């Protein structure tokens, strides 16, 4: 659906040439929710702006649905943009227009007749759950409601692709979740391909099928969300994954426990999909002569199944502990032993 090939973008700044995006190659499937995560300054905003040519690539191609976008200009480009909508972090609504009029805006641009427009606007208002607020001005809406208008506006011309530029970053956690649910709904109902950028792993976990991690303009790692969660290869990815699992200073606590029980082993277990739902711990207890002390655990849902993290203290004979670990590994559970002093 979307193919990015050898994509580069350089800016000439006073301090020299800045490589904002550096040789990015991504293939995004139709109907998929694809997330790009990175810290600010990683180049993800520039990257997503090249998907609708708001930024022109210095080199490389962007093709959407087989059409090479980077070659289009003027009228053709404007026409193509109607099929690639964008949702913004700061909503970017026209304050001078009501909710209805804001949603009608892209329809006006596309030259839709006024009766058609009215019908379509009513559908969209319903789709994003803004009934009763049609005639309000943006200044009278909450952040979440504003983003709903932004999403309705983006869907107005039945786009093939929806680009979300930090769409939830200006919202509180509860509103973020409701907007993410809405995006999943839209993805399922309309089969829409969604590309989003964010700095929050929570967003990736909750709605994305695949994820790419971006650092210094490059994609350093990409893959299915669960795979990346289970087996992060790069340090930055591990940082992001830990954003989810760690309630703050758990690492300190684990290190402390490892010291406290030199005869035992503190182990982090990562469960994915089916393994998250099997009674693994009781299996191990039954089969091996070890004691298991559960320190902390967490399970979260992703679009492709459950993802769990459990920290346990294993106590017993060294040999039994090793066997237990080997058993768990053979059952597709990620095992990470915290050093024992």
């Amino acid at each position, binding site marked *: 659906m979307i193919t990015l090939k050898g994509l580069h973008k350089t800016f000439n700044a006073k301090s020299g040439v800045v490589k904002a995006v550096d040789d990015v190659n991504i293939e995004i499937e139709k109907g998929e929710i694809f997330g790009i995560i990175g810290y600010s300054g990683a180049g993800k905003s520039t990257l997503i702006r090249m998907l609708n040519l708001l930024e022109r690539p210095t080199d490389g191609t962007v093709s959407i649905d087989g059409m090479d976008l980077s070659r289009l200009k003027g009228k053709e480009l404007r026409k193509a943009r109607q099929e690639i909508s964008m949702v913004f972090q700061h909503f970017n609504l026209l304050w001078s227009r009501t909710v209805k009029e804001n949603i009608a805006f892209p329809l006006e*641009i596309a030259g839709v007749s006024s009766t058609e427009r009215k019908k379509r606007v009513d559908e969209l208002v319903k789709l994003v759950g803004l009934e009763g607020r049609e005639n309000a001005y943006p200044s009278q809406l909450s952040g979440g409601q504003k983003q709903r208008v932004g999403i309705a506006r983006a869907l107005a011309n039945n786009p093939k692709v929806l680009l979300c530029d930090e769409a939830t970053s200006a919202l509180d956690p509860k509103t973020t979740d409701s907007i993410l649910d809405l995006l999943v709904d839209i993805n399922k109902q309309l089969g829409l391909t969604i590309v989003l950028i964010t700095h929050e792993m929570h967003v990736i976990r909750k709605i994305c099928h695949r994820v790419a991690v971006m650092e210094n303009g490059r994609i350093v790692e990409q893959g299915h969300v669960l795979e990346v969660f289970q087996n992060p290869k790069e340090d930055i990815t591990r940082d992001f994954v830990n954003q989810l699992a760690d309630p703050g200073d758990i690492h300190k606590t684990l290190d402390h426990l490892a010291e406290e029980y030199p005869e035992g082993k503190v182990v982090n277990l990562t469960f994915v999909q089916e393994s998250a739902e099997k009674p693994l711990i009781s299996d191990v207890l039954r089969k091996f002569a070890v004691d298991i002390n559960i320190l902390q655990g967490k399970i979260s849902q992703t679009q492709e199944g459950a993802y769990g993290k459990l920290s346990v203290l294993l106590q017993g004979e060294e040999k039994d502990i090793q066997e237990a670990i080997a058993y768990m590994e053979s059952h597709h559970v990620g095992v990470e032993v915290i050093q024992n002093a």
Partner: protein
Amino acid sequence: MLEQWFPNVDWEKMWEATVQTLYMTAISVVATFILGIILGLLLFLTAPGNRWENKVINFIIASFVNVFRSIPFIILIILLIPFTVWLMKSMLGANAALPALIVGAAPFYARMVEIALREVDKGVIEASQSMGANDWEIIYKVLLPESMPALVSGITVTAIALVSYTAMAGVVGAGGLGNLAYLEGYQRSNPDVTLVATVIILLIVFILQIIGDVITRSLDKR
């Protein structure tokens, strides 16, 4: 009563002068609004980093605006006499004042328009581009509506300046309240005429300000 307090005021002439002042103000405000928006848009759009970035055009318009904004109005009228005579075939009457009024006020207003346009959220312009809007649609569906309260409060200030310009134009023969106050009031030593003309001008200014404020407030939904 009126005759006792204002013995020298010819009310029919006063009314006629008021109508002339209103006429000059109205026409020049409308023309200034249109011309100022065009110049302001060009100033904004050709500025560095904007849609039609063009250093040469930007420099030419900016110089034109700065020059005509800086010339004192009374001198501008005199400088423009040949242009006015060529355009209006006359140097007298309300119509003859119009070219100078518009040339004097439009550059002043163009700067206000430029400032108002710069205040429009860049994100909203980006959003419209992402929807496939062309330049023309961005101008009349985004830039102008989003800056309308500032455009209206700007034209209110300009309109008030124009009222005082018409009084000056009156002195050099354009008619209106300024003309009346000068000829009938000052030169014939009839202070009551000057006083009444002043009060009427003040009333016009107050009413303009109130109208401007009400419109600005009703437009601003921020």
